[in-house]
């Protein structure tokens, strides 16, 4: 009994000393990548942070992207908040409105040579409110058309980049080319993002053509799906799916990355899949429409959680991660929102899979693009939209009526 007591006392003392005397801090940082190259870069940021804070280590915690927002929410609700982490664009307004994100403005203003004004204004829309900064975008990745050059050659067609150079890459041409590709090669002309356009990627499917036509899905708390521009754009898509049969239809699978479709829409991070694809390929801007050029951008930001215990230190680390140098270093994976990096040659040459002239497409789209729509009630809005959009994707659907139904369903939530 005595020895037990003794042992316990020493253990408790030892533990107490360990936590007290060293003064070392560990920042817990949640991310959704497990990619080794990404982790190496992130660990590099943690290492260089030691110049100022030799005792601080950063522990990156990977949560798979599909569960990310959900698991993060549980960590916050369960009193186990990480200090900082990545945040997806569709979660940003919800999290900011719930008051779980810390204001980074003081830390960013204090950081030497940070130059917050260098960030492109449109890219900050989701992450700022007045003087407050709830997050710093680390990836501002526009949607581009990935095309299978072999299939274009087989069909004897000019590829999207050639058409874009002649100023002919518009929605009408896109429809025409898709049909010709289907007829000539037997493969699908176009596939929505990751083949999920009718399920989890409804927004990614409808949004670019609606914006190209000069409309929007919603703006100023007003639903835009039933406006004439949106109706016309969706009617065209509907025709492509059911009349031309050039877009992979609902319930069908047509994997672009294995050569099943001639074109798809995605972000440049997917270029990492291309070396294995076994065909010649390229990226091109989104086709223009009546509304002119209207690139669409997907975003992710770095945030600090209010419930974290080392907020100031975490904010300082976020400032460190997003300095000009570090943003430039990250640009090969995550297109930057800093104008100085975006305009540099270093950026267009940063991706060894994509030639510089095609990376210019990306840089162009970032400076001109608009981010995907996000909303405090994004999950509810998507759930309300889903059944009405399902009804839209039937061969005999009345497109206009279906889009009216979408608006009826989501207007109360906007």
């Amino acid at each position, binding site marked *: 009994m005595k020895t037990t007591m003794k042992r316990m006392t020493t253990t408790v003392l030892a533990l107490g000393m360990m936590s007290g005397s060293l003064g070392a801090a560990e920042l817990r940082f949640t991310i959704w990548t497990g990619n080794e190259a990404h982790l190496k870069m992130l660990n590099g940021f943690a290492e260089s942070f030691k110049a100022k804070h030799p005792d601080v280590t950063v522990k990156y915690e990977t949560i798979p992207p599909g569960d990310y927002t959900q698991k993060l929410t549980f960590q916050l609700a369960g009193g186990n908040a990480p200090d900082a982490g990545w945040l997806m664009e569709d979660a940003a307004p919800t999290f900011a409105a719930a008051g779980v994100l810390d204001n980074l403005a003081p830390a960013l203003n204090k950081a030497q040579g940070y130059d917050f004004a260098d960030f492109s204004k449109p890219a900050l829309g989701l992450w700022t409110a007045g003087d407050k900064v709830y997050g710093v975008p680390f990836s501002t990745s526009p949607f581009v058309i990935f095309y299978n050059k072999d299939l274009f050659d087989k069909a004897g067609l000019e590829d999207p980049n050639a058409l874009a150079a002649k100023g002919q890459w518009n929605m009408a041409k896109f429809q025409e080319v898709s049909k010709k590709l289907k007829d000539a090669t037997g493969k699908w002309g176009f596939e929505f993002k990751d083949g999920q356009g009718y399920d989890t990627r409804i927004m990614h499917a409808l949004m670019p053509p609606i914006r190209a036509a000069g409309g929007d899905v919603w703006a100023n708390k007003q639903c835009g799906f039933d406006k004439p521009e949106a109706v016309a754009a969706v009617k065209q898509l509907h025709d492509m799916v059911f009349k031309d049969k050039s877009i992979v239809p609902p*319930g069908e*699978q047509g994997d672009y990355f294995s050569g099943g479709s001639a074109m798809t829409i995605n972000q440049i991070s997917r270029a990492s899949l291309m070396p294995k694809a076994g065909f010649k390929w390229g990226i091109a801007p989104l086709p223009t429409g009546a509304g002119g050029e209207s690139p669409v951008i997907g975003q992710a930001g770095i945030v600090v959680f209010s419930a974290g215990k080392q907020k100031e230190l975490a904010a300082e680390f976020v400032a460190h991660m997003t300095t000009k140098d570090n943003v430039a270093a990250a640009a090969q994976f995550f297109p930057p929102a800093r104008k100085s990096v975006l305009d540099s040659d270093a950026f267009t040459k940063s991706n060894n899979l994509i030639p510089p002239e095609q990376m210019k497409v990306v840089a162009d789209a970032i400076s001109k693009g608009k981010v995907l729509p996000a909303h405090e009630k994004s999950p509810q809005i998507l*759930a309300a939209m889903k059944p*009405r959009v*399902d009804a839209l994707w039937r061969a005999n659907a009345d497109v206009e009526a279906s889009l009216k139904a979408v608006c009826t369903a989501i207007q109360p939530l906007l």
Partner: protein
Amino acid sequence: MAGALPIRDTARREDAPWLTLKMREAMEAWLFISPTLAGFLIFFVGPLIAVVWYSLTEWNLLTQQATFVGLDNYSDALFRNPDFWHVIRNSVIFAIGLVPLNMALALSLALALSGRFAGVVIFRTVFFAPVVTSAVAWAIVWKFLLQGEAGFINQMLASIGIDGPNWLREPNWAMAAVIVTRVIKMVGLNMILYIAALQAIPRDYAAAARLEGASGWQIFRWIIWPLLGPTTLVIMVITTIGSFKVFDHIYQMTGGGPENGTLVLAFYIYQQGFQFFDVGYASALAMIMFVVVMMLTIFQLVLRRRDT
């Protein structure tokens, strides 16, 4: 000289002479079951009571704000939310479709495979294999087979001149598809239960009936079927409960769509709680599901008691 040893030294020393044997035994019993009991209380009863409490609050998980709203969540679900009744309707259709089909198929397979013949084990394994297959893999394969035009099922149908529907994109067909694929996945479990019950029935009964001139159907109807009664009841109860709780299959196959055609109660609860973070409302729905399943179970038990 062993008899000379004092008895007290060999017997166990009494630590607590004031305890009677009965009390001591009771105490020991409680101590033995305490690890399980603690787990049961902490991980089962605790959350169950918590859910009742949560269901009376409006609690947003993200903002961590909880306000007591009494029975508002319940009245909202039952009287004001049109989706709720649609969801209940879907759950009932799913159960009505799944339970009889599953049981009939399980019994037929069991009757065919309860005997002893060459290769019987292989057949049993084949029908049981889906039960232990990963639900995700199962859903992916079926989604592939059930594609609109390029799908294997529809190509087979086309070869005999039938124009198959776009299974997972039309609400009614999607419901039929999730029911049938779920039955094929889970039927093996009930088949094993039926096989065990069939093998427990002494063969003499059937032999005696045959001597009396009973036909195969008569033997089944008047001897086997009544003797399978208790097993049938168990299978019916667990299959019904399982069908009301179905989540993973729906999540993987249709995500509740198309047009909410397969939005069942468990999936709806998941949506409210884990997508909208509205834990109070989700808890109220979970309580409603609990009551529904309990009532169904009691109803089946009463029905069975009346039968016997």
